[in-house]
């Protein structure tokens, strides 16, 4: 059996390549239509988080509506952040009929691997309007250092 290099195959002409790309894009679009706005990582674990950064800090946010600060716990160990807690739904009185029930309560626990080294002493967390925002200052070693180029 002759072994043909991938890029020598007749299908790998530019036109065929484009056709393949178009097909790939169509397939991707179908999948993203099913999962809502495509491209976002869907978390299987609660809570879903958004992670962003700037020069000095790493920011991690999660939506935790109706959870009091006292019912959640944020901790940092090594290069991982853990968020855990419990969402208690308001107690309704006796003799109450539910017409609709879409919200849920329960416990949650999530561990997030941090992409950069952070300074555990400087981590702060605030929960406002049901959004938990955690600020993790980057460790000094992780900050970019400017190196001056000397001309001789």
């Amino acid at each position, binding site marked *: 059996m002759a072994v043909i290099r991938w890029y020598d195959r007749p299908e790998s002409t530019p036109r065929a390549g484009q056709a393949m790309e178009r097909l790939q894009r169509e397939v991707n679009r179908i999948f993203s239509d099913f999962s809502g706005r495509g491209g976002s990582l869907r978390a299987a674990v609660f809570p*879903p988080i958004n992670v962003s950064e700037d020069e000095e800090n790493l920011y991690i946010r999660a939506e935790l509506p109706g959870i009091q600060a006292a019912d959640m716990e944020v901790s940092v160990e090594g290069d991982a952040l853990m968020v855990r807690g419990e969402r208690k739904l308001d107690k309704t009185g006796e003799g*109450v009929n539910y017409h609709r029930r879409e*919200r849920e309560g329960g*416990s949650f626990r999530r561990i997030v691997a941090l992409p950069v080294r952070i300074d555990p002493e400087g981590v702060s967390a605030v929960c406002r309007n049901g959004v938990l925002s955690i600020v993790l200052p980057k460790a000094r070693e992780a900050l970019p250092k400017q190196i001056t180029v000397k001309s001789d």
Partner: protein
Amino acid sequence: MTEKEMQAREKVEHKAEGESTRDLPLFIPAVDIYESDDALTLVADMPGVPAENVTIDVRDNQLTIRGSIDLPDTKERLLAQEYEIGDYYRQFALGRTIDQARIEAAIKDGVLTLTLPKADINKPRKITVKTG
């Protein structure tokens, strides 16, 4: 009793065009609606919405709740995004049992609670059966 673990849920977006005037997605907030003798209570999850950004509109027996978030003004670079942020909007048909003038609303920790008192004539009354 084992504690129930919460599941991550994807936010449900309004599909209709032209409902959002901001350049943000518009989500349908999860709600619980329950009824007691005196009132109907509606509880909606709208994380990120402060009290001043909630609008409640009652007209023609239709209740509309709307919550908008304050967009952060940052130069942060996004590394991972598992949930989208956006505004919230949902409409409900109100039965004639509600005393619209006495509707109360409060929002705390991103949870909006609406109390819709029933008009007095609709409260269940016990009728004592006299023997005679």
